[in-house]
Each structure stands twice: as C-alpha cells, then as structure tokens.
C-alpha cells in the first residue's frame, strides 16, 4: 500500500517538530484528518500569523509583536534590575513565578564552543550597553556547566561596568526530601544556606 502523498507530507512535517517522533506524527496526522476544516484552517493561520507578526525586541530580545516588548515598554517595571536568561521561554517561566518585577535580557543560547557557540553567537554585545552603576544583573542561565560558564563570562564583563552581578540560587527544589537530591545539589544547597526569615 502506498500512502497518499499529502498524508506522507503532513506526517513528515509534523515529525520535524521537537519531541514528536514518527509514530506520534502519524497519530497527530490521523487526528487532524478527523477535525473539522475550520480547526485546521485556524491552526494553519495561527502558524502563519505568528511567524509574520512576531520578532525579537531590539532591547532585550524577548519575543514581541510590537516595536518594544511588553516588559521593556512598561515603565512600572523595576529599571534597576535585569535578569539574563537563555531563551524566550525562560521569560515566561519567570513571569509565571510572580516573584520578579524587573527587566530581562534574552541571550538566545549559552556558550558552548563544541557546538560552535561563542560570545558573538549570543546577544551579549547588546547587553553591555545596558550595564551601569546602580543596576543589578541577575544571571539566570541554567545550572549546567554551559550555563555556569556563560554566567562567569558575563560577570567578568559586567562588573567592570559598575553593575552588581548576582546568580540565581542553586539548591533543593521546593517540595523535596534530602534523600531525593543529588550530592552536587546538596553541597550547593548547604553552601548557599541563608539566614532564616523569622
């Protein structure tokens, strides 16, 4: 049996998406086949609209459909705080935590020489002009080796410019027992212990 070319094409395009293997792509394709035409058209239109309307903010490199992103253009955000993250998705994660009221800077990656990513492949040169006395820069790259390397690299650049530089905390995730934490994390959690708030 030969499959219809348009079915094959759809399965192929879907299986290019991250986290979607060939079997899931097939299941998705059959599911889409059963949906009303309007639903498919809406998905298709959403894809095209997102692609044509969205771009990165020229200041912080967050995703936006306006000239400046919603955070950069909000004067009520704390202008003395910039949180540096790897990816646009990290902005959403931090916003959802509800604990952060400052600005962002999205690097779009981490330093990883073996993957061909050096400082010039990231939005680092655009971060430096934002540094100044009185600014705190929170380095919130991941806690991987690459994330740590990127944070240390930035710290060296930012401190001479007068900014205060801090690193997001390592430690136990909330809701965990000690026995489920790995040794490296436990060691960091001990080192990073803080005076308790009474």
């Amino acid at each position, binding site marked *: 049996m030969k499959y219809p070319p348009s079915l094959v094409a759809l399965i192929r395009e879907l299986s290019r998406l991250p986290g979607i*293997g*060939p*079997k899931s792509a097939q299941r998705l394709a059959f599911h889409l086949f059963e949906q009303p035409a309007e639903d498919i058209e809406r998905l298709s239109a959403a894809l095209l609209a997102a692609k044509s309307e969205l*771009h*990165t*903010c*020229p200041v912080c*490199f967050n995703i936006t459909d306006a000239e400046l992103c919603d955070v950069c253009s909000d004067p009520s955000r704390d202008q003395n705080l910039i949180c540096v993250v790897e990816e646009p998705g990290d902005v959403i994660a931090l916003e959802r935590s509800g604990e952060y009221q400052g600005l962002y800077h999205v690097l*779009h*990656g*981490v330093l*990883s020489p073996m*993957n*061909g*990513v050096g400082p010039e*492949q*990231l*939005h680092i040169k655009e971060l430096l002009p934002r540094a100044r006395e009185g600014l705190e820069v929170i380095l919130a790259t991941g806690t*991987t080796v*690459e994330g740590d390397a990127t944070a240390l690299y930035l710290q060296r650049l930012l401190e001479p410019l007068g900014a205060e530089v801090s690193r997001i905390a390592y430690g136990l995730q909330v809701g965990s027992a000690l026995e489920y934490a790995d040794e490296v994390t436990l060691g960091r959690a001990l080192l990073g212990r803080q005076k308790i708030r009474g």
Partner: protein
Amino acid sequence: MTQPVPHTARPVRRQRSASRSGVVLRRWKTPKGDLIVSLLTPQGKLRAIARGGLRGKHAGALNLFHHVGLQVYARPGDELAVIQQASLEGALPRLALPERHPYAHLLAELADLLFQEGEADEYGQQAFDLFAGALRGVAHHHDPEWVALVMSYKLLALAGFPQRTRMCARCGAADPQHPDPFGGELLCGRCSHQRALSPSSLDFLRGVVRRSVRENMDHPVPAEDRAPLWLGLERFVGVQVGRVRSWPHLHAG
C-alpha cells in the same frame, strides 16, 4: 525590526537524539525489567537501554538477531543511550531452529567481542554487511555449519585477527600443515605431533580471507574434515580474542 539569531547558530541542546539501525547481538534483562541491548550497526557497536523494555512496546522488536531501527536519546554523561522508539526492519525466524540457533549465537558472541563500542572506523559498514550476511546464511543456507565457519574466519580477519598460515606458528618454517593444539594456527611437521590437515582444509585456511564469501561458500570442506578447523578456530579465538561461551553448544542441535 530585529530578526532572531539564525537557526544554524543556535546552540545544540544538552540532549541528542539519533537514529541508528543495526542487528541485536545480545540482550540483558535488568532486575527492574529494563532491557539492555548491544547492536552491530554500520557505524560500529552500540549499547542502549529500553526502559521497561521487557513489558513494553519494544520487547517484540528488540529480540536477539533482529534487525531494528532505533531512535535513541543520549545525554552527555549518561552511560547508556535510551531507546525511545524501536521498529523491526528484518527478522530471521529460522534462526530459532535447533540446527541453526547455536551458530547464530556463536557469530553474535564473536561480533560482540570483536567490535568495540563507538568505533566508527572505515570498516564499520563492511563489518555490518559481513555479519548481517552471516546471519542470513545461517538462517537459510542448507549448510549452516559451513556458513558459520567461513564467516567466523572472515569476521576475525576484518577485526584485525587474521591467522598466520604461511609459516609455522612456533618455528617460522614455511608451508606448515599441522594443527597447533594451543594457539589454533598452523605448525610444521617438526613442531607438531598431530596429523596434517586435509588438503581442502589447508586450502580453505590459506584462502578464506582473500577469497570472496561466495567463493568460500562454493568450495566447502567436507563435513567430516571440519572438526580440526573448528578446534583451531576455538583455540585461536580463545588465545587472541577471549572467552566465547557458545563453543560447547555448537554441535548440540
């Protein structure tokens, strides 16, 4: 309006997915019900783990001697790649037949010993083709014993263990014709007290590596003359390569 960094410059994620295709050489059950498999692929040997494999949807595909396509996922630092998808690309059910099964085990055990993980050298494709062909031969040829004998010598040579057949393994004399009961190669008449090999056996040993598989298959050593060849092979592998547990079971079928 600023465009994002082009895709090619984007960092590769910490995890890597890869597609591989190969033949299952061995499988081990872990007490948790996971399945660890060793495969021979054209890119070298690969070991990977199928979580919950013994009761999962991969159990069927990940059988011994199956040719499977795998989607594996390896994080740097992980000891074993994790199998995410497995699909059968070819099976040889006749390898379960009593007169064929032990030879398939021998070849798989040999291949598992001979090829190292991650060695993706120029011989990878050749080794894979040779081994896959050997299994097909054991499954379908009317003389599976002969297939196994030929292909074992071929695999050894490809892996860098050719037998010396032009000089006595002990004194170096030319044209040795007697079996070496310890090293499995050939000895001259002075160094050995054993009977000389038959002319067809000698011709086989001297030509097996140079000749094509087809040529070797077309000129079998008579079944009654093969015992010394098997013995020599067993000794040679034991000395040069390592322990092979299939030997005692080769003629049980």
